[in-house]
């Protein structure tokens, strides 16, 4: 992997290196698909990712439905209020029960407002907070995947440069096809040329080694973090669902009970 060194703070250099990275990854993936290079697989991790996606989808749907429900609660509050105000306006002062009507209108308004507020403060907010964690983790999973490809690519590169060494002793000259330069070199300079070639291949081998180490380190760091976080997130869903919906059911029960009492006043 001829990595163009990170251009020292030059944007063009950075851009070039990103392009290079993408190319390398694409190349590696193609190799893997063609079966020419093996992929690091982690079945347990993949299951974790599947669960993660499932959890995210479910959570999003719940959030969407909850929001729709809250909007409906709001609408019903308003229309109920309008209707009651209409009745209250028509209720003539000399009719029996005028005060009752007015107080009913007020009480129900308070109950509705209270109900809606509780739902927003508890259910909606905790839902939003819960779901807020997902996008970040999702992008980290994607990053981990990319680092994994980098790692695999570095691994293959390293092993292919090492293969060169595993050939016959000093067999560089023999395994490589004789280049024009070699043929043109006078006898006395052959030594220098071969030394140069050895240095070059050592250099690229060392480079590959460094590359491998680096890729491995980066990958493992991010991998380990995720390996901890994903299961704990998955397990947290139970607690979240329970606390959110239990409290929501509690609010609803209280609301309906109180409303029943108000109506009975008539």
């Amino acid at each position: 992997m001829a990595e163009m060194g990170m251009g020292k703070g030059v944007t063009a250099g950075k851009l070039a290196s990103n392009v290079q990275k993408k190319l390398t990854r694409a190349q590696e993936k193609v190799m893997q698909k063609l079966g020419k290079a093996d992929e690091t697989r982690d079945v347990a991790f993949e299951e974790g990712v599947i669960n993660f996606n499932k959890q995210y989808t479910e959570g999003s749907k719940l959030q969407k439905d909850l929001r729709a429900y809250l909007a409906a609660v709001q609408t019903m509050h308003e229309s109920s209020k309008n209707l009651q105000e209409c009745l209250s306006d028509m209720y003539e002062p000399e009719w029996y029960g005028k005060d009752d009507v007015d107080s009913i209108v007020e009480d129900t308004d308070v109950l509705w407002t209270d109900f809606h507020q509780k739902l927003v403060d508890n259910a909606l907010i905790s839902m939003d907070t819960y779901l807020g964690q997902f996008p970040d983790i999702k992008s980290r999973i994607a990053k981990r995947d990319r680092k994994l490809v980098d790692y695999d690519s570095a691994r293959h590169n390293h092993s292919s440069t090492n293969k060169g060494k595993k050939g016959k002793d000093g067999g560089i000259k023999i395994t490589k096809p004789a280049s024009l330069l070699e043929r043109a070199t006078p006898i006395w300079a052959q030594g220098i040329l071969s030394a140069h070639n050895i240095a070059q291949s050592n250099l690229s081998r060392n480079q590959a080694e460094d590359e491998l180490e680096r890729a491995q380190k980066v990958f493992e760091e991010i991998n380990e973090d995720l390996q901890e976080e994903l299961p704990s997130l998955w397990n947290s869903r139970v607690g979240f669902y329970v606390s959110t919906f239990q409290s929501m059911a509690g609010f609803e029960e209280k609301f309906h009970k109180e409303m029943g009492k108000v109506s009975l006043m008539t």
Partner: protein
Amino acid sequence: MAENKMGPNIGAGAGGFAKLVQKSLNRAQEKVMQKLGKNMETKDEQFEQYSQNLSKQQNDGGRLFKEAKAYFSAVKVMHETSKRLSQTLRDVYEPDWQGGEDLSVIIESEDLLWNDYEEKLTDQIVRTMENYTGQFHEVKERVAKRGRKLVDYDSSRHHLEALQNAKKKDDAKKELPRRCRQVTQRALEMTRTPRIHLVSFTREWRWRVTFQKTARCSMTWKT
């Protein structure tokens, strides 16, 4: 004055149309005279009051109906969204968790309650209000008709007066006033009938109280 609106317009055609045009013209003329203060208008304070009450009642009823319909559709939306939320929750509920069957039962019962509520609202509130507001149109028509007949009456009365003041001793001409008088008598009677109905209708004013109380009770919250 071609009065006979009651009689069947046999072979009306152009003749009938001409009569109507004539009537409208007469009425317009009378009204202008009244506005200019040249002719006296028969006023009936009591009836004016009834008429105003009628308008108010109609407006109130219409408004109430509109609000009730809006409320009803809000109820339906709330039913829908609540159901969807519960269903999503049920989908999320994993098989090995406790209480999965209870959840289904709860969802069913909630659905039934909502349906019941919606049905009651439809039957008791929406239908009732529809019928209530439906009757206004007819009554208003009759009030308007009475108004027109009143104008006719006034108009013929003035015509009669004018003729009498002219002091025509001509027999043939006296014939005309008598016929006028007959016509005006009939017109006057016709103005009385709507009034009676209107009185009884506004007695239903009191019925409104009971109605509205019922409406409110019907909106009792079902726990």
